[in-house]
């Protein structure tokens, strides 16, 4: 089944190479503006790392002209699934819809084939499901970075905060910031004591069976909470819970919102913010929030609700945003590659000469934060609370 779908996808690509470069402010569609397309190709150099190159390699693998060598396997795992190639793919056609060439699906399918066929999943990625099944998180940590719960909400709250692995175990200050803002707004947000990894990283690294196992457990836990809304700071968790769970037959009985959506509709926030000094801020669009879920304006509206704050866009922004390098297991499996992509992106953000760099994704923050200072958007808003 995977193979059948995959064959069709591999065949469709016409090989125009729009997935390598799209220099300038006039892409082939209005709104496309970038220089290069694939952050991995820009670090590793060879065109094989573009979507077209991976597809050509994929065809050779599919047709048995090439075997699953360690390099071939790496080529399919050295992709952050940022979706920039799909955004610029000529096969998006008219009207401007999803591309016919679904590069992310192709990559995930090959990862699934490699995983199911025991063909040699890279070691650091192979460890992820072991950690998730034993510890419930991708880091394999036994306890969160600081004491839980971060949020002091009531257990009977209709809205709960889903931390996700990165916030719970690495970027705890984000949850604390959410807590602070929620308290200021007198919002009753609960926490989930026995929250498990959403399964996102396992899904995106092709380890579908193990992902589904944890997703199923998680769905049961979450559905039993009796809540109306689940909010999360992590675009990966958000996208997985909102879009991937139903695709895997798991219906969730509550609304799922990214923290940005949740707070941007709160009209009281603006009245709580004060700032007398003129400052510039630039915003990094996380791939899974922007390109995958089309959430571009709400974070900007939130930032612009702070008095005397001027928003400056980096050259590559919104649908053209450059990846932080962390996605889809690259941070775990290829930390050097991740760091180089992050450095490239951070330098671009810094070149705006903004006083602050802000994002809305704990994974982006973790990756870019290794290069320089970057704030989570809620953390940033808190700086200006009256």
């Amino acid at each position, binding site marked *: 089944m995977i193979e059948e779908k995959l064959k069709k996808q591999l065949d469709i690509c*016409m090989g125009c190479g*729009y997935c390598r470069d799209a*220099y300038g402010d006039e892409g082939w569609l209005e709104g496309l503006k970038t220089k290069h397309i694939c952050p991995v190709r820009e670090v590793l*150099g060879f065109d*094989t790392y573009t979507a077209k190159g*991976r597809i050509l*390699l994929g065809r050779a693998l599919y047709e048995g002209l090439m075997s699953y060598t360690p390099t071939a396997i790496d080529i399919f795992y050295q992709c952050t699934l940022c979706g920039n190639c799909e955004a610029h793919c000529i096969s998006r056609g008219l009207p401007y819809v999803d591309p016919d060439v679904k590069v992310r699906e192709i990559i995930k399918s090959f990862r699934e084939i490699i995983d199911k066929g025991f063909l040699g999943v890279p070691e650091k990625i192979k460890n992820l499901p072991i950690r998730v099944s034993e510890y419930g998180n991708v880091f394999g940590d036994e306890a969160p970075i600081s004491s839980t719960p971060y949020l002091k909400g009531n257990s009977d709250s209709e809205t709960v905060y889903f931390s996700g692995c990165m916030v719970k175990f690495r970027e705890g200050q984000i949850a604390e910031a959410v807590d602070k803002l929620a308290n200021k707004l007198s919002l009753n947000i609960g926490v989930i004591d026995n929250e498990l990894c959403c399964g996102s990283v396992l899904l995106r690294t092709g380890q579908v069976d193990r992902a589904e196992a944890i997703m199923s457990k998680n769905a049961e836990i979450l559905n039993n909470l009796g809540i109306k809304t689940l909010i999360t700071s992590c675009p990966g968790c958000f996208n997985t819970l909102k879009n991937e769970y139903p695709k895997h037959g798991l219906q969730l009985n509550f609304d799922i919102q990214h923290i940005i959506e949740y707070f941007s509709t709160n009209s009281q926030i603006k009245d709580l913010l004060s700032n007398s000094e003129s400052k510039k801020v630039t915003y990094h669009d996380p791939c899974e929030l922007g390109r995958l879920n089309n959430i571009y304006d709400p974070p900007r509206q939130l930032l612009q609700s702070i008095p005397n704050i001027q928003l400056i866009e980096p050259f590559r922004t919104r649908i053209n945003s450059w990846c932080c390098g962390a996605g889809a297991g690259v941070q775990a499996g290829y930390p050097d590659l991740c760091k180089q992509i992050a450095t490239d992106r951070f330098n671009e953000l810094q070149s705006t000469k903004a006083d602050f760099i802000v994002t809305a994704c704990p994974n982006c923050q973790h990756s870019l934060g290794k290069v320089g200072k970057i704030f989570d958007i809620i953390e940033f808003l808190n700086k200006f609370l009256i």
Partner: protein
Amino acid sequence: MTQTMDAYNSLKEIVGNENISIDPAILWGYSIDSSIQEPKLPDMVIRPNSVQEVSNILKYANNEKIPVIPSGGRSSISGAGYSLKGGGIILDLTRINNVFIYEDEANVEVEGGCTFSKLAYKLKQKNLTIGSPGPFSAFSATIGGGLSVNTYAMYGANIYGVPAESLLSIEVVLPTGQIINTGSAANPKGKPIFRYCNGPDLAGLFLGSHGTLGIITKATFRIRKRHQEELYYDPVFDTVEKCTQCAIELTNTRFIGTLIQFPPIIYKQSGLDIRAKGGGMLVEVFGDPENIEHRKNIVESIISKFTDMTVDTPAPLFNAREFSIYRHMCCVNGRWAEFCGFLPFEKVSEYIKIAEDFIEKNKDLINRASLFPQIGAIYTLNCVNTYTLFMAYDVTPENIEASSSLNKDIADILFNLGVSPYWIGKQYSNAFNTRLSPNYVNLYQMIKDLLDPNAILNPGMFELEEEKKQ
């Protein structure tokens, strides 16, 4: 394998470990261009960073008699920029991509691995252009590759012709590793400011040579101010003849940027309901604030002599920017074989009739393979560029084979009509030998033998070696 390993060990000294690979997984990414030809694996890929590195690589390859295939964006749809025979070294030239704009001297120097879109963007920031900005694949197609395959650009073709029309000079690395500059830059004290001087126009020798005679590592183009205004028209006509005559008159105004003539079938396929039996055209007028109104009056007056009908072309038709002006009607995705080439104005109506008859005659196969035929004539300076293709949106081996087979048949017919293709590639290499004048082919063979005595550059292209053996 020993020769490959020896070459690998020697050449990595030139470009560094990270810019050379003999790993098959990496090599598959360089196995084909955008065409429907069969992929072939090279032995090695190298990413040089300077003309000197290119020269050193060629010196080594020439000594060792190792085939070298210069490669840019590999976006050709005729089979170019990859190893046609398998094996050899792919030279990925995309690291050599700087742009130097000399506004005072009205020229731009651009390195061979730069994409057409990057060049256009850099120039546009200064309100400049080389004229015809680059092909449909401008986001990946490189300057060196484009010039080597006689690239064609639809946008602005009516007034500017092809990108090479603005060419002043090129820097080329010969198969033996020597670096030469053409035109005024042939004088070591000179600058690349003029093409036709210092003896023969040697730049022309390398244009369209498909990388068989040398590797273009730099080009200098004349630059001009960009137009500020554009107007669009989409008239349709009673007869093909009226449409053609109108197109010729519009072209002769010398201020039409782009003009594409379509037969009726194209409108029908695109879901545009027109009653006109003669098809129609898309017209793009270039101008500036001080003359656009005057041009508008002239264009409307010419069109009104031939028709009062127009069609509501969907806005997105023109929304695809300068590298792909009418993508809605043409190549959104899918795969296909295509025959493009030049004809005089007087044969446009005949071409359209031949192409439409061909589609009618082959409609069973076209329907069976769910193919989407495309026919058009792009008015280009003093002639038209005709294109005929059979797009397979439902990409299966059978449908691709059907597209390929129809392309071969129509190409035979159109060669006999006098069409001269600008791409040759793998697809028309055999035609190069069999359709063109023997004296022309012999002269080319002599030049090839002289410049590339070991036949290392792009073997298989034009099928010259095969001919020599016979």
